[in-house]
């Protein structure tokens, strides 16, 4: 997993609590983060119940997780494959478009175009790796849509690239498979449902605002879905795989809702 030297001592619990979300990716390695999250979940969420010994903490966590899985199904039911997210005029684009990741701006990955190959594996007919030039040669489209973050804020941006549905058809993906998973150069990983993968606004994004995607927005490519929250939109994608086995995700494995629809 992703490790970086921490800039602050781990003992500084208050600071970590304050910026639980973004900072933990930076300051703690994976097993410690898990333990920390479990502890804070009980501190903030369950002390009033479990402190009195009324219920077991883990029972409440399991119940919440089960409801989150139920909410995945509810969202899949509500998701209309033909309903488009609103689009906006260029004049409404948010400047500067915010940077957001599980790490800080000083740790943005620089992926070299030379030597870059997009791996495509799993339930696809054509497992050949793709160069950026080949992706750019496919028919392109762009969209100005609202990016909604799980934190609540939103921003409007302009993304261009290959409609993901045409890419999946081109590689002969099994379109009846349940999931499409993504592995990224910044060690991020996530997965989405097939109906969203085939949504007309789901874009294998190569450009931002008419320019090649800059590193801060995920060079060489990100998956842009205006029908899902920001953390479902992976950047710096290196590998795409089609599968029927639930692949989870970086934040999803820690408790964010998997469907993450909008």
């Amino acid at each position, binding site marked *: 997993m992703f490790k970086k030297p921490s800039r602050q001592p781990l003992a500084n619990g208050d600071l970590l*609590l*304050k910026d*639980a*979300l973004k900072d933990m990716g930076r300051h703690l390695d994976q097993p410690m983060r898990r333990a920390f*999250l479990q502890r*804070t*979940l*009980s*501190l*903030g*969420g369950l002390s009033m119940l479990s402190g009195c010994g009324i219920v077991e903490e883990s029972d409440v966590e399991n*119940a*919440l*997780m089960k*409801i*989150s899985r139920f*909410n995945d199904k509810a*969202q899949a039911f*509500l*998701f*209309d494959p033909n*309903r*488009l*997210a*609103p689009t906006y005029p260029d004049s409404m684009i948010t400047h500067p478009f915010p940077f957001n990741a599980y790490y800080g701006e000083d740790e943005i990955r620089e992926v070299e175009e030379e030597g870059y190959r997009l791996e495509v594996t799993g339930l696809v007919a054509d497992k050949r790796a793709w160069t950026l030039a080949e992706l750019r040669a496919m028919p392109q489209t762009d969209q100005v849509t*609202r990016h*909604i*973050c*799980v*934190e*609540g*804020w*939103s921003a409007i941006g302009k993304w261009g690239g290959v409609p993901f549905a045409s890419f999946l058809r081109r590689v002969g993906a099994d379109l009846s498979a349940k999931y499409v998973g993504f592995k990224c150069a910044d060690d991020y990983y996530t997965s989405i449902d097939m109906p969203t993968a085939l949504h007309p606004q789901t874009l294998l994004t190569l450009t931002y605002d008419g320019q090649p995607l800059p590193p801060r927005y995920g060079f060489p490519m990100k998956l842009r879905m*205006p*029908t899902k929250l920001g953390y479902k939109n992976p950047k710096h994608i290196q590998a795409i795989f089609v599968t029927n086995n639930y692949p989870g995700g970086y*934040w999803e494995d*820690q*408790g*964010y*809702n998997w469907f993450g*629809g*909008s």
Partner: protein
Amino acid sequence: MANTTDLIHPRWVRITHWVNAVAVVIMAMSGWRIYNASPFFPFAPPGQITLGGWLGGAIQWHFAAMWLLVGNGLLYLACNIISGRLWRKFFPWSPRAFLADVLAALKGKLAHADLSHYNMVQRAAYLFVMVDLVLLVLTGLVLWKSVQFPLLRELLGGYEVARREHFLAMAALVAFFVVHIVMVALVPRTLLAMIRGR
């Protein structure tokens, strides 16, 4: 069960009231934690009074309790309308009588002899909180699924406006909650009535 005509609050009112109370407390406390992830006003509720521990935990609580809030709320409204209690208890409505009751309340002279009868201030407050909860659910739907509910989204002014509306409706609910608790403390018999029914 004893003679039901003596009941101030039928059983379904008491059950839905307390379920609603639990749901509202969970929704508000987890909602504050979610708000704290990206505050849009120059203040944020202290972390100690929020629920969930971190954003992901708070969202789990919020999107679990929403089913309780909505399911229970629909049950309450259905019973209220079908039984005719809504019209009996909260209407008729008279602005003049409302002002008179507000004045009486401010002077500390508003009588509570008959708990089965709501004065105009109570009627206004309870109707307000019903409407406010409906608004919280509708604005919440726009935040949760802004793409899937386009009509609702546009009616409420779009995603970013709905965020503020959701927050202000929450603030109004908290204000109601505070006044409600103060009134119960002043007239403790009302608490017994909401537990025992009489």
